[in-house]
């Protein structure tokens, strides 16, 4: 789980162009600068490509923060 958080960090830093961003499980669109709907699309697309998984429409709707995202990725990877 820590692993996934560590792997997500550079993706978020790149997409949001914030080299100093420190990501936590509690990070979400309202407490991370520039995490708007467009960045969100880029984040999801890049994370899907990184892990070679696809998120279902319903799963995407239910994501609240980075913690949810990590849990979802774990489920997806375990199912592979």
């Amino acid at each position, binding site marked *: 789980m820590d692993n996934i958080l560590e792997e997500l960090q550079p993706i978020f830093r790149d*997409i949001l162009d914030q080299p100093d961003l420190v990501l936590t499980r509690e990070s979400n669109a309202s407490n991370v600068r520039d995490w708007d709907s*467009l960045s969100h699309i880029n984040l999801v697309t*890049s994370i899907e490509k990184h892990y070679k998984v696809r998120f*279902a429409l319903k799963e*995407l709707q239910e994501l609240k923060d980075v913690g949810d995202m990590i849990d979802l990725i774990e489920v997806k990877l375990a199912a592979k």
Partner: protein
Amino acid sequence: MVQSLVRLSVMNLDICSIDELLLKRKSLRRELASAEGLQSVRIAVLGGSTTNEVVDLLEVLLLAAGFQPTFHQSEYGRFYEDAVLDPSGLIAFAPDIVYLHTSYLNVQTVPPVHCSETELQGYVDAELDRYKQIWQSIKQNLASQIIQNNFELPAVAILGNMDAVSSGGTSRFFLELNSAFARAAASNPRLLLQDVHGMSARVGLDHWFDWDRWFSYKILRTAEANLAMARSLASMVRAIYGKSRKVLVLDLDNTLWGGVIGDDGIDKIQIGRETPVAEAYTAFQEYCLSLQKRGILLAVCSKNDEETAKQGFEHPDSVLKLEHISCFKANWAPKHENILEIAKELNLGVESFVFVDDNPAERAIVEAQIGGIAVPDIGPEVSRFAAIIEAGRYFEPVSMSQEDLSRASLYQANAARVSYEAKFANYGEYLDSLLMSAEIAKFKPLYLERIAQLTNKTNQFNLTTRRYTLAEMEAISRDEQYIGLYGKLRDRFGDNGLISILLGRREHDVLHLDLWLMSCRVLKRDMELAMLDTIVDECRAACIHTVQGYYLPTKKNSMVADHYDKLGFKPVSVNAETKASVWTLEVAGYISRNRHIKILEPTHG
């Protein structure tokens, strides 16, 4: 340091993957936008789906190409309204370019399945009319260039194969609509068509649409598809501003032919039809020639002795001839110096150059030494060179002027195709229509490898199925007792290469045919008649009176069991056990039989 960073990112953009580009887009944009002397371009994007991703990618690509783009995007799906009903926002933005980014989902009325041919035309006209209103409104209100995409085929074809045929098929409708768009663009200089139909086929429709992103964000296409769209758009913008490239600078050894001409000699370089590798180099030369014919200048830049290098173009199978090369530099000076010389002689800037070389070290130095030149990484496989160069979209034209085209040759090719569609009264007429020409001559060092190879792989049209090594063939070619003929056949569809071998061994005034074979790709072309004519001529010249033929049956060569009988040879004997047969033909009284193949003087080599 900043400068070198920028150069680095620019270099990578042509080839980098969508994954990399999505991740690094923001930092790339920051770096690239800091460069000086960027040319401003204002682009309004009127979208039928969410356009942000394609615009974000386009922005980075344009920055890398030396533009400073400013974008205006319509709300998704409001392309018609923004262009026709309320163009005030568009007018206020004053774009240089208006890009209409629409998809098959934006069509107002798709014909119902029961639609008739006449009704189909009505549906096409109605949709075309809606777009004509858009283009007309933009033309009236703005001074901008319009880029309109045509349509990909729909994601589902509910009528299966009939979908492209039936007047009620959705695929058929879009094919018709695309033709109508093409005609509209061909007659309207303000309107440029972006060929999404072709692009989507190249990427593949299954990798083109992304329904999850469509339902979630109204982004219709995959990131890969949007990158393909952005790359093509960037090349169109470059072309609009006259920044398309105009010169293809080519290395020679292992780029235009296989092997090193200075070491291997003209006989051993790989070009022509005789091996797969040679075929691949020939195909690449044909690609280069096709660029030359549409107005791209070809230049040579090679580390070679000039005279030796030029010999390569005199190879009988070289598609490219010296006359196609606008500037020829073969010497031992560094390549970047030669390229600057070429630029001077052609009076063109190096930023209009593309440099193609199989050697990564040469590419690296040229790229580092000459700012603005394009140096695609063509990789190690000649079969991929053309596709990799194409993917760079370096030579995008926005219009084809008279001077761009060698029209005469284009028209010739078309005329030939049309006449071929006519029907034939008999087989001879068909053979005549093939416009065949053959080169039949005694063995040459250049072809011995191919000759030995053919003896080892030809099984069906092979009278004796004797196999020879290259060394044996080399010995035979020097032995006065042998008459060895090779035959090459060309027809309207191209060069079939070296396809037939006839080998005779002299004993007094008799020539024994040890070998007669032909590749099956030229069966029933009368090539065997042309070969026989030539061997009889050779016999006459050498005072040989009788030709003796042998048929040795195998499991695979029954197609030539009656070969000698059909050619008018007389049976001499048949071995009761093996069924091997012997045949003779008297040279005196033989009349040439080939009627349909023109015999060419052999080329030297």
